[in-house]
């Protein structure tokens, strides 16, 4: 993989990048964690003001020269206690009841709220709606063709920090609540054990009629396969029975691993099975765990491939991890392990290559054409900069800190560029594939 462009994102800790084409221009919308204890409100050079970390908007039309156009402040608070880490973007022309001339951004506001902004003019974003009063938020999903949004929320009356609130945002200015959803035992009024909290869903829309929910970040992972139509139109009262009604299948992972991203790959022919009369085409979901502790102080969080051909009995069939010894990553400082994958399903990479952020091991390009045998075909580890923040562990009761890259999230665009952002404030790196990896995607040689 090769670096083609860079922006420092004003030295802000970054989480979700979403790349969106607006007319003849391309923009990266990047959600941020809160600031650091040392710098809770970094200066926004566009206006000279100190601002709590929120959302960066970067014009990436010319990937070699990305141009920072706006920062929208987020919730007060450092690290995971503030910011506006999640962001999705839809065109009004695609949303059933949106202004056809508008572009809308859905973002979180710390753990307090979901917000919808008009970003038709990315340099002049305008707040339209706030859905407030939550205990937490996280990695939401928004179907641009229907407007249905699966918002990761902490409804105050639910027993879990994060569950799903389904909204109809087909007219983003007038949100309509459809229902609450979660694992049985999380609903109001239940007693006893509370199942692991939601991390995030990915929907295949009305065509695929499935929503894949990932529960558990780095522990007690659960992949839940849900019938989208039953979820939207079935009984909505949050009872255990109604929560089970739309569930098609569920995979309980090894409790040592979580489910951060549950990325559906859909039906794929498996070359090795091509002569079998049955089962030569399989259905897959890629599950990415999130490492949360520094310097390997927890079980390795990595990538798992689930064969979901028989949806009621999903099974893990393969895995991938960046090899630790290849970079002595447990000693480099910060987190080492998987965090997230690209979520774009644009044809350029879909079912061919997956990009996995691996914290201090950078981003990893994985050939997934045979999900039974995933294979790494490229990687890129950015260099640290003066802005890169330290990461500490306790040694004999004292902080022992190291400065290390923490590639946090990754996304791709339809042009074939890969965008990685850093949790330790190093910024945005725009990459492209080279050599054999590039050929897998069918991109012309560079």
């Amino acid at each position, binding site marked *: 993989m090769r670096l083609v462009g860079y922006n420092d994102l004003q030295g802000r800790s970054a989480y979700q990048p979403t790349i969106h084409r607006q007319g003849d221009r391309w923009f990266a919308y990047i959600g941020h964690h809160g600031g650091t204890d040392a710098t809770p409100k970094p200066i926004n050079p566009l206006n000279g003001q100190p601002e709590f970390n929120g959302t960066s908007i970067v014009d990436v039309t010319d990937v070699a020269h990305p141009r920072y156009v706006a920062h929208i402040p987020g919730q007060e*608070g450092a690290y995971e206690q503030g910011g506006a880490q999640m962001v999705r973007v839809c065109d009004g022309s695609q949303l059933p009841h949106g202004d056809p001339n508008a572009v809308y951004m859905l973002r979180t506001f710390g*753990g307090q709220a979901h917000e919808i902004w008009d970003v038709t003019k990315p340099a002049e974003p305008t707040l339209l709606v706030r859905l407030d009063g939550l*205990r*937490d938020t996280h990695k939401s999903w928004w179907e641009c063709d229907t407007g249905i949004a699966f918002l990761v929320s902490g409804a105050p009356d639910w027993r879990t*920090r994060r569950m799903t609130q389904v909204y109809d945002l087909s007219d983003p200015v007038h949100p309509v609540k459809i229902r609450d959803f979660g694992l049985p035992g999380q609903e109001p009024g239940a007693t006893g054990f509370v199942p692991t*909290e939601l991390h995030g869903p990915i929907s295949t829309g009305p065509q695929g009629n499935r929503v894949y929910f990932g529960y558990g970040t780095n522990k007690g992972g659960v992949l839940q396969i849900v019938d989208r139509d039953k979820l939207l139109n079935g009984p909505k009262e949050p009872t255990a029975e109604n929560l089970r009604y739309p569930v098609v299948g569920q995979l309980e992972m090894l*409790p*040592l691993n979580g489910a951060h991203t549950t990325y559906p790959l859909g039906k794929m022919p498996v070359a090795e099975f091509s002569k079998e009369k049955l089962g030569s085409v399989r259905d897959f979901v890629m599950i990415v765990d999130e490492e949360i502790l520094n310097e390997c*102080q927890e079980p390795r969080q990595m990538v798992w491939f689930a064969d979901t051909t028989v949806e009621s009995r999903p099974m893990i069939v393969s895995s991938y991890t960046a090899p630790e010894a290849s970079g002595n990553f447990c000693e480099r400082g910060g987190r080492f392990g998987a965090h997230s994958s690209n979520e774009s399903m644009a044809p350029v990479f879909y079912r061919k290559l997956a990009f996995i952020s691996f914290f201090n091991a950078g981003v990893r390009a994985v050939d997934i054409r045979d999900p039974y045998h995933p294979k790494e075909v490229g990687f890129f580890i950015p260099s640290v900069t003066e802005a890169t923040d330290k990461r500490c562990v*306790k040694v004999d009761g004292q902080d022992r800190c190291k400065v290390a890259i923490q590639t946090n999230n990754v996304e791709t665009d339809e042009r074939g560029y890969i965008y990685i952002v850093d949790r330790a404030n190093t910024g945005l790196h725009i990459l492209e594939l080279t050599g054999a990896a590039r050929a897998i995607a069918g991109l012309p040689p560079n």
Partner: protein
Amino acid sequence: MDRLTKAFPGAILLLLAAMLIFCGRGLSAALSADGAPVQSGWSAISWPFPVDAWPEGRAFHCGIEECGTEVSFYIRPKIGFCDCYRGVSDDDEIDRVGDLAVLSERYAPLAPGTTVSLGNNIQGRARHFAVYTSNRTRQFAIGIALSRKCDAIVATVVSDSPISGRAEDSAFRLLNSQEIKNWIEAIPQS
């Protein structure tokens, strides 16, 4: 007034205050001298539960003579599992982050919870529960959930008999002992 303060009978508080003045030493030092048991009456035991999602913690046992009933105390971290914004601010949060599930997935609260604090940075709540085990017996437990930023420290006090005030006081003194505080201080943070 937090749970620890309320748990001490007045006479013991006065006695401890006199000891502090007389000895010029902190409460935790008086309760956890070098090389002595972590806390009077409590013996460290092996972590008794099978491997699950969370790392093993520390386990202790206190007998009838010292605590008035056979009682066990378990404590471990759940890193990254706490509400970064509110910590353990209500009783539902004890259900969510607490560790009663190591005993059984079926439990029910017996009373509203109370606040607990270990210094300024670690605060949370504790609540009494009845725990229903698979062989249809009932145990009695105190679920304790503490937050340090986004991380939870969870403790469980459990007995086959109702937990007496004496046993409860002793368990909270163990929680507040310097050794446990040092152990918590050394836990990685998310």
